[in-house]
C-alpha cells in the first residue's frame, strides 16, 4: 500500500484550472493531491467578469478560441447548471461605432458555430430596458454568466468525492527533483506552520500567472505575460442580459449580470510581475470604467458601486503587443519532458475561465499517458455536485413541495441540489445575500473553509451591499466556535474587514461611503476592535 504522502499526481494551484484538473484526474481513478497556497479561486479565477462567453467576442480575431468557447459554453450549461445563469448576451452598436463591423462579426460567429441573431434595436430595448437607448444595432448571442467561485468549489468538491486530497493555505516552497525527474514537492502549511514533503510521478503546474515562478522552481522557463484588468461591481443587477460592444475588443466594453450584482470591465495594462500579488485600482481606471460603462447602460452613471478590483490575465507571451489584448487566449499545455527534458512535470496555462475543463482534460491526458493509464475523460458528461437536478427553478421545485422560503431559494441558487441537505440553522448570517447559518455550517464542514474570506467565496457572505457590516462578526463567531480559537477568528475578522475596505476605497463616495462610515462605527466603536 502506498504511503500517505505518495500520490499519482500532484497539482499545484487551486484556481479553476487546478480544481478542474484535480476533478478530471480523480474521475479517471488517479490518486490526486491538490495544493493551493491561499484559497481556491483567489487568483485570476476569482477576479474576472464571470462571463460565460459564447465565444462571440473572439470570433473576428481568433476563430480557434471562439470555437472552444462555444463548445465549452454548451457543456457548462449541462454540467454546471447551478453555477450558470443562461442570460444570453447582446453585442450593441452605438452611433459612434461602425455598423459595418456587425456583418463581419455575425459571419465570424456563425463560422465558429456560434448562434448570432441580428435583432431590431427596438426589440433589444424591450428585452433589456437598461441598454443605451441610442443603439443603432444589436446582435443576440448565447452569452451568459458563470459564478467562478461556485464553479471552482464544485470542481474541488467533486475531486474530493472521487478521493482527491486538497490542501489549501499550503504553499509549495520547493520542487523535489532527482536528476532530470521531478519527484514531488515540499510545502509549508500557512495555518499550522508545518513543513511537509509529497511525492508523485507526475506534478502539474496549474499556477496561472504564478506558474511562472513554479516553473522557475522546477528549473524551467515559461514566459508569462501579466496584464492587469480592473473591474467595477455595481450594487444590483442593472441588466439581465450581458451587454457587449460590437467592435474590436477594447476597454470596459462588457457588462455582465452575476448573481445579485453586475460587473463592468475591463481595462488592460501591462504590469510588472512583482505587482501580481497586490493589485490596486487607480482613480483613472475607475473613471474610465464608469465613462465607458455608462455608454453600454446609462443607468450605471447613477447606480451605487460596491467595489473595484483587478485581476491578472495569465497570458503566455507570444508576441510584442504592449497591451496584451491581441494575444490568443489559446490553451498552452507543456510537457516539460518533451520541451525541456524534465520528466514528471507538466505546465497547463493560457486559456481562460471558459475553457478550464478543456485545459484540465488536456493536462490530464498528458498525465495519464505518462502514468500509462488508459481512461477517457468524462467531465463533459457528468454534472458537478449541485447541478444534478438542473437549473434554479427546476431545482427548487424538485427539492421542496411547499413554496420555498427566500433563504431556501437563495441557498438553492448558490448550491443547487446540495440545498436539500442544508438546514436553516439559527437564522440568517448574511442578510443582503440571504445566507443562513445552516449554509455557513455546510460550507465550513464540506468546502475547506479556514477564514472569513474563504467563506465569502463559498457562500457570498460579505459580498452584498453591506460588505460585511453585519455578517462578518456573526460569521467570525461561528468560525471561532468551529476552529475553537477566538484569537484567530478575531484576527481573521480584522483581515476580512480590511480586505473588504480595499475594494471599497477606490469607489468610496455617496452611499458607499455612508455604509463604510456605518461599518466603521460598528467595528471600531460598538465592538471595540
Amino acid at each position, binding site marked *: 500500500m502506498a504511503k500517505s504522502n505518495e500520490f499519482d499526481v500532484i497539482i499545484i494551484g487551486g484556481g479553476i484550472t487546478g480544481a478542474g484538473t484535480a476533478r478530471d484526474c480523480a474521475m479517471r481513478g488517479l490518486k490526486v493531491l491538490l495544493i493551493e497556497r491561499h484559497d481556491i479561486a483567489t487568483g485570476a479565477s476569482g477576479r474576472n467578469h464571470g462571463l460565460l462567453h459564447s465565444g462571440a467576442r473572439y470570433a473576428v480575431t481568433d476563430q480557434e478560441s471562439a470555437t472552444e468557447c462555444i463548445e465549452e459554453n454548451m457543456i457548462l450549461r449541462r454540467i454546471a447548471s447551478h453555477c450558470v445563469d443562461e442570460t444570453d448576451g447582446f453585442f450593441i452598436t452605438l452611433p459612434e461605432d461602425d455598423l459595418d463591423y456587425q456583418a463581419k462579426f455575425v459571419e465570424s460567429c456563425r463560422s465558429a458555430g456560434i448562434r448570432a441573431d441580428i435583432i431590431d434595436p427596438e426589440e433589444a430595448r424591450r428585452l433589456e430596458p437598461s441598454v443605451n437607448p441610442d443603439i443603432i444595432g444589436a446582435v443576440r448571442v448565447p452569452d451568459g454568466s458563470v459564478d467562478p467561485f461556485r464553479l471552482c468549489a464544485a470542481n474541488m468538491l467533486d475531486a474530493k468525492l472521487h478521493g482527491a486530497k486538497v490542501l489549501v493555505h499550503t504553499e509549495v516552497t520547493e520542487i523535489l527533483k532527482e536528476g532530470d525527474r521531478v519527484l514531488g514537492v515540499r510545502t509549508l502549511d500557512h495555518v499550522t506552520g508545518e513543513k511537509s514533503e509529497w511525492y508523485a510521478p507526475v506534478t502539474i503546474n496549474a499556477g496561472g500567472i504564478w506558474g511562472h515562478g513554479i516553473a522557475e522552481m522546477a528549473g524551467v522557463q515559461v514566459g508569462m505575460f501579466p496584464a492587469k484588468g480592473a473591474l467595477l461591481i455595481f450594487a444590483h443587477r442593472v441588466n439581465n442580459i450581458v451587454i457587449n460592444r460590437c467592435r474590436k475588443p477594447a476597454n470596459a466594453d462588457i457588462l455582465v449580470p452575476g448573481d445579485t450584482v453586475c460587473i463592468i470591465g475591463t481595462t488592460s495594462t501591462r504590469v510588472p510581475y512583482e505587482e501580481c500579488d497586490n493589485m490596486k485600482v487607480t482613480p483613472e481606471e475607475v473613471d474610465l470604467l464608469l465613462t465607458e460603462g455608462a455608454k453600454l447602460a446609462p443607468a450605471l452613471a447613477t447606480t451605487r458601486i460596491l467595489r473595484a478590483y483587478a485581476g491578472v490575465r495569465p497570458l503566455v507571451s507570444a508576441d510584442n503587443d504592449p497591451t496584451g489584448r491581441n494575444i490568443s487566449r489559446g490553451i498552452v499545455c507543456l510537457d516539460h519532458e518533451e520541451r525541456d527534458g524534465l520528466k514528471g512535470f507538466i505546465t497547463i496555462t493560457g486559456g481562460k475561465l471558459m475553457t478550464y475543463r478543456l485545459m484540465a482534460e488536456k493536462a490530464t491526458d498528458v498525465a495519464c499517458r505518462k502514468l500509462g493509464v488508459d481512461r477517457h475523460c468524462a467531465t463533459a458528461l457528468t454534472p458537478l455536485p449541485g447541478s444534478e437536478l438542473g437549473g434554479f427553478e427546476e431545482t427548487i421545485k424538485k427539492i421542496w413541495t411547499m413554496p420555498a*422560503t427566500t433563504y431556501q431559494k437563495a441557498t438553492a441558487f448558490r448550491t443547487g441540489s446540495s440545498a436539500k441537505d442544508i438546514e436553516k440553522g*439559527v437564522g440568517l448570517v448574511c442578510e443582503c445575500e440571504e445566507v443562513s447559518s445552516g449554509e455557513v455550517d455546510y460550507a465550513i464542514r464540506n468546502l475547506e473553509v479556514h477564514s472569513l474570506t474563504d467563506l465569502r467565496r463559498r457562500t457570498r457572505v460579505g459580498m452584498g451591499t453591506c460588505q460585511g457590516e453585519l455578517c462578518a462578526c*456573526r460569521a467570525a*463567531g461561528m468560525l471561532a466556535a468551529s476552529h475553537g480559537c477566538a484569537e484567530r477568528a478575531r484576527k481573521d475578522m480584522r483581515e476580512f474587514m480590511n480586505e*473588504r475596505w480595499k475594494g471599497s476605497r477606490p469607489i*468610496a463616495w*455617496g452611499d458607499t461611503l455612508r455604509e463604510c462610515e456605518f461599518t466603521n462605527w460598528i467595528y471600531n466603536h460598538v465592538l471595540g476592535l
Partner: protein
Amino acid sequence: MKFQTIIVGGGLAGLTAGLALQKKGISCAIISSGENALHFSSGTFSGDCPEETVRLFEEAGIVLKGDPAKDSWRLTPSGSMQKVRLAFEDVTLYPSEKINATNVLIANPEGFIDFPTAFIADGISQQGIPCKVKSFSLPCLKLLRESPSEMRSVGIAKKLDGCIEEVAECIKGLLDGEDLVILPQVFGLASPEPVRALRAAIPAEINFIGTMPPSVPGIRVQLQLKKAFERAGGTFLMGDTAIMAEIADGTVRFIRTKNLDSHILSADNYILASGTFFSKGLTSSMQKISEPLFGLDVECPEERTEWYSEDFFAPQPYMAAGVKTDKDLHPLRDGQPISNLYAAGSILAGKKNAGMALTSTFKVVKKIAL
C-alpha cells in the same frame, strides 16, 4: 410656523439641545430625518463630557453612570477593554483596565449570533479570570426562531421584557458560584425597568454588553429623550427632512421641509446638528464632500484619494470632515459666519465622539439661552 429655535437633526446633539432649551422656556422644533446614531450606540459615551449632561438626562429619566471628567473602562463585545466616560445604566464601568470579578458567566439566548460570546470569553480569560459561556432558551423566543431574520436584539428584547421573572429564574439556574454575569443588551427596550428587575433578582453583578445593531438601550434613551422633549412642549417633526434654507444678509430666514412643502418654518436661531455621512449631514460625490442644506464651508482633504487610510481600523480622514465655524460655533459660508446659525455635534470638523458632541451642544445652548 414659527419657533424660537429650529434644530436640524434629532440625534444625541439635536435632542440634547432641544431638551435643554425647551427646559429654559425656549420653544423648539426638531426636524429629524428618520432615526439616528443613538440606535447604534455602544451604551457608553467617550471623550470629555460636560457636567450638565448627567443632570439633564436624569430629568428625562435616564441614569448615566461614571464621571464625566474622568475615564473609566468598559468591556467590549470583542473582549477588549475600552476607555469611556459615561455609560447607560445597563453597562458596568470599571475603574481600571481589568474587570471586577473572580468568576464569570456569559449567558446568551440560544441561537443569538449578534453577540460574539467567544470573543468576550477570550478577553476575560486573557485577564486571567475563569469564564464560562452558557446559552439559555425560553418558550417566549420560539416565535422569533420561526423567522430566519428575527433573532435580533430588538426582537428578543420585545419578548424578554415581558417575562423578566422567567429570565431571572433561568439565569439563576445557570449560576454556579459566579460573581459576574454577562448578558447581551437585549433587555429594557421601552423602559429601564427590566434591566433593574433582573439586577435585583440575580445574586451576582450583571454587565449588559452591546450587540450588533440596533442597540436596545440606545433606542430606549432616544425614546426617553424625545418624550421628555415633547412633554416639555417641544415639537418633534419625525421623518421629515430639511431640504432648503433661505439665507439673506448673513442670517437664516426660514427652512423648507420635504413634508411641509410650501409651509415654511422660521425661528430666531437655528442649530445644525445633522450628523455626518450616515445621516446625510454631509454628502460626498466622486469629486467632493459638501454640506447639503446650507452649503457651508467644509473642512476635508481636497483629493478623494486623501480621504482614506489604507487600514480600515486606523483613523479615517473622511470621518474627521465637517463644517468650519468661528469660535462661537457659527458655521462659515464662503468664509463668512452665519449669525443666527450654530453647528453642534458630529457635523463639526475634527475627531468625533459623544463628549465632543455634548460639549458643543451645551456651548450652543448657552449662547442661545443668554
